[in-house]
């Protein structure tokens, strides 16, 4: 695995908002087939990093390479079509659509299918993540269903790399376990996964490697066991009472 070129390379990435530096000179790579964990206290820059790599924000400085191609100047929809997709921590369903239609959107435009095949693909993906009620309006969906829908939408575009932004937050133990299995299945199907999470058990269970962010910088990198004992990591988290 180590000898293959990385699927994602981030070089000296900086994102400023006015005077605030949300992502501060980040460099890292992600290998094909890996599950990478990104952890850090609130405001560490995890979601900003997701937004910059998925193309919602332009970086202030630095470059992003996906499968060897420089995607820094590409728009979000182009990156989605290339194979980078993501979920939203604060779920963003299309409220006028049913669950199925929401998933169809990314099969239609992310993967470029026609209506009929997009519907089939959406059904498959929904089944894959364990969604049963496909034709319900968004208002009557549960939090778990919405989280699953976010994942299904991210998968329906046929990505090589998926950001899962706190998909376990707010779920109970059973639901979390179900979700962990889902993520493992996603990874087993050949998709590289970046998991952004607060719940340490999840990170421990799922990831091959972890990056710890604090105030936009990488303060530790390695396996979960390695980083969880580093004093910087503990103090970053202690400052946040977790």
């Amino acid at each position, binding site marked *: 695995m180590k000898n293959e070129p990385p699927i994602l390379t981030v070089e000296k990435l900086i994102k400023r908002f006015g005077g605030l530096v949300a992502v501060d000179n980040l460099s890292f790579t992600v290998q094909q087939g890996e599950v990478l964990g990104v952890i850090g206290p609130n405001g560490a820059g995890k979601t900003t990093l997701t937004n910059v790599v998925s193309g919602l924000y332009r970086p202030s400085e630095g470059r992003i390479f996906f499968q060897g191609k420089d995607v820094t100047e590409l728009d979000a*929809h182009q990156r*989605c079509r290339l194979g980078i997709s993501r979920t939203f921590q604060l779920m963003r369903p299309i409220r006028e659509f049913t669950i199925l239609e929401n998933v169809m959107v990314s099969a*239609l435009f992310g993967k470029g299918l026609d*209506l009929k095949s997009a519907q089939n693909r959406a059904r498959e993906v929904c089944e894959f993540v364990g969604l049963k009620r496909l034709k319900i309006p968004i208002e009557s969906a549960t939090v778990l269903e919405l989280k699953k829908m976010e994942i299904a939408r991210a998968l329906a575009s046929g990505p090589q790399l998926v950001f899962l932004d706190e998909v376990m937050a707010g779920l109970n133990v059973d639901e979390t376990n179900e979700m962990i299995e889902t993520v493992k299945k996603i990874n087993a199907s050949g998709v590289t996964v970046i998991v952004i999470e607060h719940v340490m058990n999840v990170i421990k269970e799922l990831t091959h490697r972890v990056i710890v962010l604090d105030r936009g910088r990488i303060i530790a990198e390695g396996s979960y066991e390695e980083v969880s004992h580093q004093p910087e990591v503990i103090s970053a988290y202690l400052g946040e009472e977790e």
Partner: protein
Amino acid sequence: MLIILAVVALGFLFPLYAGPYPLHVMTTVLTYMALGLSWDMMLRTGQLSFGTAGFFGLGSYAALLTTLYLGLNPLASIFVGGVFAAIVAFALGYAILRLREIYFAITTLALAGVFTVVARNLHDFTGGPEGKILPSAIFNGDPTKVYWLTFSVALGSILVSELFQRTRIRFAITAIRNDEITAKSSGIDIFKYLLFVFVITSAIQGVVGGAYAQQYGFVSPESAFSTNFLLLPIAMCLAGGIYSTLGPVIGSVILGVLSEYLKLRFPYGHLIIYGVIIVAIVLFMPHGILGMLKKIAQKTRTEVGGNENEK
């Protein structure tokens, strides 16, 4: 869908039984129907356009002037009106489709203002404030033929609108309207779709304008860019219900006929009642007639369902 087919069928039968005056009223209704549909189609992307009258006017001028100067067949000139409006929309779209909400709305209104000033001041070419007159109106003003012309334009708009509702376009523009961030993260090229819809709807407005100008054989800044062609279609869509084909169709028929009646009844001040209707709809019926009917249907359905459960 059935209702739309019924309306279309009525449209086909109408000229067989109606005299010249009802035909004329219906021609006006159909003009507004096409404009309303085109405006609604743009609104379905979440973009509120106030440029309807502007592109209508461009089409009017393009059609009339090509017939006047180049001797183009009136029917072909109507097509030219649409193409011209589409080209202008395409060029302008690059600059203004990054704007949102109030800023897009006001900019489209301002663009219509620019078109008006240009038309009024290019005296030698457009005839200035007095405008230009053709030696004769299209079909020599035969009301039945004019009706068929406008009917085809309206029918075309209905078809395009249904196309928007039944293809992947619906998924793209509904997603854009609801949440642009989700839309682009799902792979939708927002700008491309906005530009596409803007060009198509402007083309429809141009064609409607061309047909209108040929119908009277006359064009002037005040008639071609009249705010009526902006306001009335919007009011009609709102009355019928937005984001659908049926809403603008129903709304234009009801308000169109009503306004004609009001015009006869109150030659002065019928526009007051029109204004009151707009205000009343916004305040009391924000989802239009269609929305209200849906609500009633839902209520009766749940009531019926409840009764069945009791049995």
